[in-house]
């Protein structure tokens, strides 16, 4: 259109168009950008006070243990306290906390320098006790006493634990088929340790960069792994021999451990009966709380298993040693580069989603349905629309009224009778109900095509008739090429309708192995619950193929549009 008018108006016009296009595109993509940003965040990043667009980068931690500096060293005002009162007492807090903070031995801060450690601890301690102090005690006279009351040694310990990061490994459990599992207490091999343990960890190769220490608290024995990758290379490992009888039918093993929020990788190798099982994927040390990591030995029905896979699978490799009747476990920490850590963190949700559900199986089912449905609905809808738009036959108007009327009945009310028909046909729990219906044309598309076919000039058809074409030839050679853009639109609509439909599969499928992606995602949503990042990642994984397809196909599709202008 912009080829007319003066040069000035043309330029203004172009500018306006570009402005509108760019601002519109930005507005339309903001929610989508937020979706991507959310999918890159880890669980605790979702609950920020302010909106955060850029996901956090993983920290650089060549040394562990250390004090987490993310909480900062600032002392914050609790809600509800008068700002003026706060300004008056703010400076008193750090001195009031100093005695307890300084009482902490210097070696409690790990590899963090002592001064920085104490500052971080002061802030954390204040954060933990500030809410307990009544508002009217925020006076120079009363506050120090209140601080002294709440900030006791016990509280200091709790606050320090909250910001102290280390790799702690607790119990190891092994489970053979049909058994409920053996829980093993494994301690560090430290001379003079008297706690009873079932097995002892030792550092794999004696390197000075790594040490083990034992922490015993609340009846638990944990082994803390200290490392310094500034000194050593890429891997630091610890290993132990485990007392376990039923080696032949060992199925799973698990480690109770706490990560050090470093995003380093943790690998395991289990050697049993001369076989060696390496974890296929690393466990990422991002957590701060205790967790249990499960590893599953390879089993023949790995691929058919439709359970939510919250374990790490292992692969069998050739054993190096003869370990008949014995079980050796090696745990290794891999120091990864900043880039690798960033990659690991940003792809974490995606990999979890792919690992949790049989994604590719769902994709295949969806693809099958999409292909067959596009083919069927384009073909049959255009046939029927042709009959309604261009042919005269007795009963046409009654049928048209009936066809229109059927769209107006809400689908929910015909659900049960439809289900009974499907059941009667023996199609329940098969994919047939999800595609056979498209062979009969969709009312929406028939309506759409009819509207556009009615717009085609009669002379084209008459000319074809004079040339001796029959109705099929007119439909195929004259009408179809002219409504090609609409057919393409129908193709896209059908693709999206099928790709996104979850109500149909929900009704007609009961085997999870037959789920298409849409229902798989819906089911995943009921499992993943509050984990927004993982849900968004799964949703994006489901959306990306369609985006790619649209991006690639739209050029052909729009070309088709451009050449179809009908000269009236």
């Amino acid at each position: 259109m912009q080829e007319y008018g003066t040069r000035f108006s043309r330029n203004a016009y172009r500018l306006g168009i570009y402005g509108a296009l760019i601002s519109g595109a930005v507005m339309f993509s903001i929610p989508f950008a937020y979706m991507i940003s959310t999918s890159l965040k880890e669980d605790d990043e979702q609950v920020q006070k302010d909106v955060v667009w850029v996901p956090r980068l993983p920290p650089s931690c060549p040394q562990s243990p250390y004090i987490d500096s993310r909480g900062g060293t600032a002392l914050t005002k609790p809600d509800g306290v008068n700002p003026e009162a706060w300004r008056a007492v703010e400076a008193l807090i750090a001195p009031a906390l100093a005695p307890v903070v300084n009482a902490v031995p210097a070696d409690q801060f790990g590899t963090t320098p002592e001064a920085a450690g104490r500052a971080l601890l002061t802030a954390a301690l204040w954060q933990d006790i500030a809410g307990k102090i009544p508002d009217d005690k925020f006076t120079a006279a009363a506050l120090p006493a209140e601080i002294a009351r709440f900030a006791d040694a016990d509280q200091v310990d709790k606050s320090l634990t909250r910001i102290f990061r280390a790799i702690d490994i607790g119990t190891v459990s092994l489970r053979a088929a049909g058994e409920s599992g053996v829980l093993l207490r494994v301690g560090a091999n430290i001379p003079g340790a008297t706690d009873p343990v079932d097995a002892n960890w030792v550092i794999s190769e004696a390197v000075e960069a790594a040490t083990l220490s034992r922490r015993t608290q609340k009846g638990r024995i944990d082994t803390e792994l200290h490392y310094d990758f500034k000194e050593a290379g890429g891997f630091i490992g610890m290993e132990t021999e485990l007392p376990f009888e039923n080696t032949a039918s060992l199925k799973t093993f698990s480690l109770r451990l706490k990560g050090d929020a470093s995003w380093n990788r943790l690998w395991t190798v289990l050697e049993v009966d001369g076989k060696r099982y390496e974890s296929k994927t690393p466990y990422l040390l991002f957590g701060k709380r205790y967790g249990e990591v499960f590893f599953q030995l390879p089993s023949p029905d790995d691929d058919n298993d439709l359970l939510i896979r919250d374990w790490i699978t292992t692969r069998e490799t050739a054993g190096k040693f003869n370990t008949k009747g014995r079980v050796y476990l090696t745990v290794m920490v891999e120091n990864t580069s900043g880039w690798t850590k960033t990659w690991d963190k940003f792809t974490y949700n995606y990999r979890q989603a792919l690992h949790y559900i049989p994604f590719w199986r769902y994709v295949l089912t969806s693809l099958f349905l999409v292909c067959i449905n596009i083919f069927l609905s384009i073909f049959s809808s255009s046939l029927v629309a042709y009959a309604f738009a261009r042919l005269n036959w007795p009963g046409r108007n009654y049928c048209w009224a009936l066809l229109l009327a059927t769209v107006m009945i809400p689908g929910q009310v015909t659900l049960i009778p439809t289900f009974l028909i499907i059941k009667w046909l023996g199609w329940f729990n098969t994919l047939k109900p999800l595609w056979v219906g498209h062979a009969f044309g969709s009312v929406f598309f028939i309506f759409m095509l009819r509207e556009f076919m009615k717009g085609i000039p009669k002379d084209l058809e008459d000319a074809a008739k004079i040339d001796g074409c029959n109705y099929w030839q007119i439909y195929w050679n004259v009408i179809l090429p002219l409504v090609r853009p609409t057919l393409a639109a129908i193709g896209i609509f059908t693709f999206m309708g099928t790709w996104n439909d979850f109500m149909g599969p929900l009704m007609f499928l009961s085997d999870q192995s037959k789920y298409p992606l849409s229902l798989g995602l819906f089911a995943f949503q009921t499992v993943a619950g509050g984990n927004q990042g993982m849900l968004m990642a799964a949703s994006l994984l489901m959306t990306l193929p369609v985006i790619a397809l649209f991006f690639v196909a739209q050029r052909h599709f729009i070309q088709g549009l451009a050449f179809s202008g009908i000269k009236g």
Partner: protein
Amino acid sequence: MGRLKRGLLWLGALLAAAAIYFALRGENAGGPGIRLQYWTDPASMRASAETFENYEREHPGVKIVVGQSAARNLVEDPQRVLCSIVGGDPPDIIVFDRYAVGEWAARNAFMPLDDFIATDAGRTDGIKKDDYYANCWDEATYKSKVYGIPIGTDDRALYYNKDMLIKAGYVNGKNEAVPPKNWKELREYAKNPKLSRWEGEGAKRKLTVAGFVPNYGNAWLYLYGWQNKAKFMSDDGKTCLLNDKPVVEALQFMKDIYDDLGGAEQVYAFQSGLQGGERDPFLTGKVAMKIDGNWTLGGIAAYKPDLNFGIAPAPMKDENDHPISWLGGWAWVIPKGAKHPQEAWDLIRRMASVETALHMSEVARRNEVSQGRPFIPGLNANRKVTEALFKKYMEDDPSVDPKFAAGLKVFIDLLPHSKYRPVTPVGQLLWNQHIQAFENCIFAKPGDGTTAQSALDASTAVVQRELDRIVVPNNGPEVSWPVISAIYFSVLVLGVIAFAIWFFTRFTGNRQARAEAYAGWIFASPWMIGFVVFTGGPILCSLIMAFCTYDALAPSHFVGVRNFQEVFTQDPLFWKSLYNTVFMVLGVPLGMVVGLGVAMLLDANIRHIAVYRTLFYLPSIVPGVASALLWMLIFNPNEGILNWGLAKIGIAGPNWLQDPNWSKPALIVQGLWGAGSGMIVWLAGLKAIPPDLYEAAAIDGAGPVRRFFHITLPMLTPYIFFNLVMGLIGTFQIFGPAYLMTQGGPVNSTLFYAYYLFNQAFRFMHMGYAGALAWVLFAIVFVLTLYQLRLSKRWVHYQGD
């Protein structure tokens, strides 16, 4: 042309490949032997997996197929269970919400289990009533027959933040926090400005910290009613006592606290900003006390284990009464028509044992700790299991903070004194109506005449009407579906024959016209076949249903026009949902304007147009489920990007989905985001306008505006018409957002017609009533469409005509 053919060929090839793949894979994975279908919620699947393994090893030939119901709520969203039972292919065991067991049993959906229990009497591992808490057991019993074996259970108590209570001065001699003892104290605590806090004055006054909100957490009117000795249903089950004096007093008590806090709207605005998980207001000190279920203990242990809190029985109206609570939970049921009831029972027996429960809890514990959360065991309807779990995971575990053990103990001690929702065929309706009455009452303004009494009266009337119909059915003859199908098919066949006779004897056209008629029929036949087989029958069925009572499980009876009468005269929600739906029609022209605007921009001849097209089209590609999730994040009043963005330009955003006045506009905004899907149709329309028209106009000196109004718009009229008709029909059937995002709330502000209809059909199982609603909607849409069709003759311009 060649491209189209090639495209079709490619599709065909892909199709063949896919078909071969599926043929090779086989549709039926099952071999010989028994396939025992077990439906449960996905969260517990992993915990059961090892138990199933062991069962399968002991019962060779039996394979347990765990089905995920894939529904968020089996009871409120039960179309799948219902269909499977109606269709005669139900699972063998369902883990079912216990309070609904009686209601479904009344509809004859489940098998009574008494015979199994009697046969098992001699077995040491048999299921014995005495092992169970009596109230849990009775909740799954209907008309003295057992229909479900109770499993997990839960009850409610008062959580209080000790630090906040101490700070407000509620302490005893030893400086320990003292929770309120009775209703009077509870109300005083709640309105104490040292506990509840407000900001601002007058109209801007905002609740920022709440001492106590009666229905925040999980209390409901039921709890306060029971505390006041209300019964809700008469003993003979024939009278609904929802408007009895004790309930009225209880509701008044709740309303009083809401009013003390500044009125329900203010409290809801406060609540709308509240979240779960780590930001749970009880953990962050925004709520000092709440009545909630034992399941929230786990959240405290996970996110704020050092919170200084206590748990006490919810304060009674009279502190001298023994404290009570109310319980809910799950039960195993065997549906009617299950193929392998005996094997199902064997599995239930095994799963109900203490050993299995301990084992499953161990797996559940591992699952919790694997996600970094400590494990707090749940309660079980089996007394022995509850005690064993408490001992193993609380008493014998030195690493557990004693406050959690003490808290859980309160819940366990309350279990024998817990009430349960009345077991009645109208249970679901009673539940929804009791919420309805509560919302109507607390949101009532002083002037509009709604009191606790009147709100409860109205709700009671609805429940009682339904109840009367069940007690003394006043129905016409039974509907015989086979006869109706036979009539349907004979009418069809006779019609075709009559038409054929007419055509061959009276049709006046020439050979050409005959040929065209044959061609027309052949070309239209796909739709005709589809209509006869898949559409006509169900539609006819829904029409007949509209004049019947029908719950899908029991035979249906004709009731004349009663359903329609009720729709128009006795159903305020019908009007409410109709209003909500009509409101959404606003989105249709808006969507058309946005869609057309975008399409016109994209029609321009500009570089990188593919990128823009994709960007504008993106939103329509995002699957509905994902889009719903995303927009719930965006609309979050406190942390969503929408209000964040508005705040940047100085606008205080509303509470969107949580505000009854803003929920519908919010959904319209969301709909506009997806307006790109219409863009495709608009683009097709724009491209079909012959360029010479513009050239001619330009030569005549018409500017862009005139060209738009005199060429573009008139040439687009068929597309406008199509979008308008389809948009209206689509809007009147809007369902997804309500189903996926709002569940009709808040205060029924997004209860759209189709969603209301769906609820009537599946939640309350009023299929007949839903049929009537559907046909009323049909009538409305039909009239509107006819009107549009008639009008269209004046303004729609077809090039071909």
